[in-house]
């Protein structure tokens, strides 16, 4: 069963307008053999957590540009844990200051991928860190 494809939900919380990066990531991860549930723009943490719960994903990937990461990311983690999704890996991509990265990791965000990270490296990280029970 561990050889079934990793399921990842990709969402773009917050208010900024385009999702080119998220779409490139979605296609890239599909090509890496992931099942990518793409939910589009302007998602609230509640919508993301509810969708992740119904989809029973292994990973929630959040694309962040807006600078609202300190509000959105810990809240999403909290809502996922409230729904009993203790194992789900939450990762984010975007430009986030080092000081915030430390705080986000303390709040349960597994990893932050900077703008230059290759899709291959992201896929490898997920393959190594996804836990299934």
């Amino acid at each position, binding site marked *: 069963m561990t050889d079934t494809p990793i399921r990842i939900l990709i969402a773009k919380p917050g208010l900024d307008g385009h999702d080119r990066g998220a779409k490139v990531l979605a296609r890239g*991860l*599909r090509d890496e053999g992931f*099942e990518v549930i793409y939910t589009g723009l302007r998602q609230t943490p509640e919508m993301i957590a509810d969708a992740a719960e119904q989809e029973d994903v292994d990973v929630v990937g959040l694309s962040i540009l807006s600078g609202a990461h300190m509000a959105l990311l810990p809240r999403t983690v909290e809502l996922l844990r409230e729904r009993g999704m203790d194992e789900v890996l939450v990762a984010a991509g975007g430009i986030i200051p080092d000081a915030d990265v430390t705080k986000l990791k303390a709040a349960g965000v597994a990893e932050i991928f900077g703008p230059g990270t290759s899709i291959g490296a992201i896929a490898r990280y997920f393959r190594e860190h996804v836990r299934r029970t």
Partner: protein
Amino acid sequence: MTHGLIEELASGARRPLARLLTRIENGDPSIRPILPELFASGHGAHVVGITGPPGSGKSTLVNALIGEWRRRGKRVGILAVDPSSPYTRGAILGDRIRMMEHAADRDVFMRSMAARGELGGLAATTWIGAAALDAAGYDPILIETVGAGQSEVEIARLAETTVVVEAPEMGDEVQAIKAGLLEVADIVAVNKGDRPGADRAARQLRAMMSTAGGRVERSPPKIMVTTATSGEGVTDLADAIEAHRAAAREPLAARDRAASQVRRALADLAGGRAVANPAWDETIQRVAERQLDPLTAAERLLDGVG
């Protein structure tokens, strides 16, 4: 253990349902022993297949139907199936984008599934998945599939009511509908009714249905025009789907569907047993070398003779 699960489903808890759907999707052997109880605990939900070519507006229409049925006080379950890449096994499951307005509604449960390319497996997965949603009290249950391959059409055929969604823009598309999907349609939704040509396509289809033979055993599909983005025609479509429920449950129709379901299960079962036969590789090799004909090979694999 089974008992606890069925009760959890009935209580409306979403996490156990989501976890169960994962096991179903993975073909987890632990599903087999709970199947009888899972089916028995269903509430008789109306299972509706929504199929048609990519981009015709199936997911947008499902979104509009969810809204309509929520206004009628119904709890709606959705399984949306998209193809997997045969090369990487990966998939982009994008149907949810169109339905996010219902993401946080506790009375809507939507699950995206990748077809994963297993022979026959998809039909089994969606059927058992629908049974799980039924046990959890969702009614109706909508199954969205891309009406391209044989297996998708087959899933549509297994539903009680099949809606084929088309968005004809080119003249030759009406021919394409005729070729395959129309045979499984109980209702055809000519979508994108806001665009020129939709009404004409609907008229063409109606004319075709009244003259074309070949469907003597079933009544011709109802042809409707919808605009999924504005909701126009969606109330009528929901009414037509609900009205078809009774027709789908008439003894003859129910028997036909049951026969298709059992035939499908039989094919899966036989195929699975034959592949698991230790003589599989050797038998296939003999057929490849033309020492054995395929039918005899299949018989031997099934008998376990090898």
